[in-house]
């Protein structure tokens, strides 16, 4: 049984460098959420040289658009959305200091190169385990782009949020290395 690496946010270069593809990780601390529409706005601000509505240096962004929370719940079901749709916006955010991304699915060559250049890590959260993942989200508030509804930028406080390092800062990619071991 693989052991679980416990990390807290914000991330540090040292922590990120030590995370290897395949590591099971448990995240505690604050993380931001953003997906398609929010990324488009953030990217546009970066292109114009304007200030972002959040400090992303050393932070983690979770690609998610959560379901609404039932009364008594901090957060509705909140599994990852497919990351490749954020690819074109990501290198600019990594250049600005974003250290970690949580999502699911393949990333482009450009994103992986930028991760290596900026010492950043990409975590995989299990798609389909949305209700289970929501249990680790203890607090949720909208911090930007409220008009986007489920696509707004949230700040979550998470405890033991379960993820797997799927692409590490050296560019090792679990989506590429693992399937051939099980192929026939």
């Amino acid at each position, binding site marked *: 049984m693989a052991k679980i690496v416990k990390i807290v946010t914000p991330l540090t270069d040292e922590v990120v460098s030590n995370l290897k593809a395949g590591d099971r990780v448990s995240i505690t601390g604050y993380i931001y959420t953003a997906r398609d529409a929010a990324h488009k706005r953030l990217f546009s601000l970066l292109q114009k040289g304007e200030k972002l509505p959040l400090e992303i240096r050393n932070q983690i962004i979770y690609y998610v658009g959560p379901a609404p929370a039932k009364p008594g719940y901090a957060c509705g079901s909140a599994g990852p959305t497919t990351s490749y749709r954020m690819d074109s916006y990501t290198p600019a955010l990594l250049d600005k200091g974003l250290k970690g991304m949580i999502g*699911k699915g393949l990333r482009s060559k450009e994103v992986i190169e930028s991760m290596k250049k900026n010492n950043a890590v990409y975590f995989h959260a299990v798609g389909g385990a949305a209700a289970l993942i929501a249990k680790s989200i203890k607090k949720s508030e909208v911090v930007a782009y409220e008009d986007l509804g489920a696509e707004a930028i949230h700040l979550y406080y998470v405890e033991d949020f379960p993820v797997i390092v799927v692409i590490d800062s050296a560019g090792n990619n679990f989506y590429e290395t693992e399937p051939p071991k*099980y192929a026939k």
Partner: protein
Amino acid sequence: MRKIEAERIKKKVKELFLRANYHIGEDVLTALKEAREREVSEVGCSVLDMLIENYKIASGEEIAICQDTGLAVLYVELGQEVYIIGGNFREAVNEGVKEAYMEGYLRKSIVDDPVFARKNTGTNTPAIIYTDIAPGDKIKFMVTPKGFGSENMSALAMMKPADGPEGIKNFVVDTIKKAGPNPCPPTIVGVGIGGTADKVLVIAKKALFRKIGEHHQDERYAQMEKEILEQINNLGIGPAGLGGRTTALAVNIEYTPTHIAGMPVAVNVCCHAARHAEGIL
């Protein structure tokens, strides 16, 4: 003629979308547990365990199985002896969807114009409604909240008759290979063959309603299903695309007559959740 009130249509649609979003099918749970027994990848087993636990939580607490509560798609068979009163059919269906999503703590995921403003409609409507008129005096509903992680991996190929079963198998397996981890494997793969470019995609999605483990009643198509499933699982993509022997739980082929010059083939992918519900008025 049998009168059915629009209000009853609205209530039935609401009930079906809530059910599909909270409760996974028994056949899916069984298939996941069986896959868990057979899976050899450690990470794969851990992913399957998380999925099985997720469905227990969602069902027990009546919360969404997945945050992508999908675009509402309905296949309705309207008995030709039915006479709808007290409202407009399409409006009643959309009201039912709206109420399910507003009251059921389900995410609203529909945008109005797909290219420019992409403003969320706030109600998870409009639904996509396919209606068929059939003999009888009932209304049969088959509904699916279709998530787009899987939907985005769909594909269409206008193949030549000469491409044959081998061509079809290669196309389906290639489509799943390209999709990799994106549609949340293990997936259910709906395959449509025949018809026209649009019809073939409709039947590919309808193929997703079949109970897992059931095969096409035509032995030749059933054989194709088994071969494609084996080839897909031999890709090694595994649960969540992190490597393993369980990449697809089922491949369901539906075919329909087509033109002498063509063999349209469509793949509509669904994640393992295969959310759908059926009901009759």
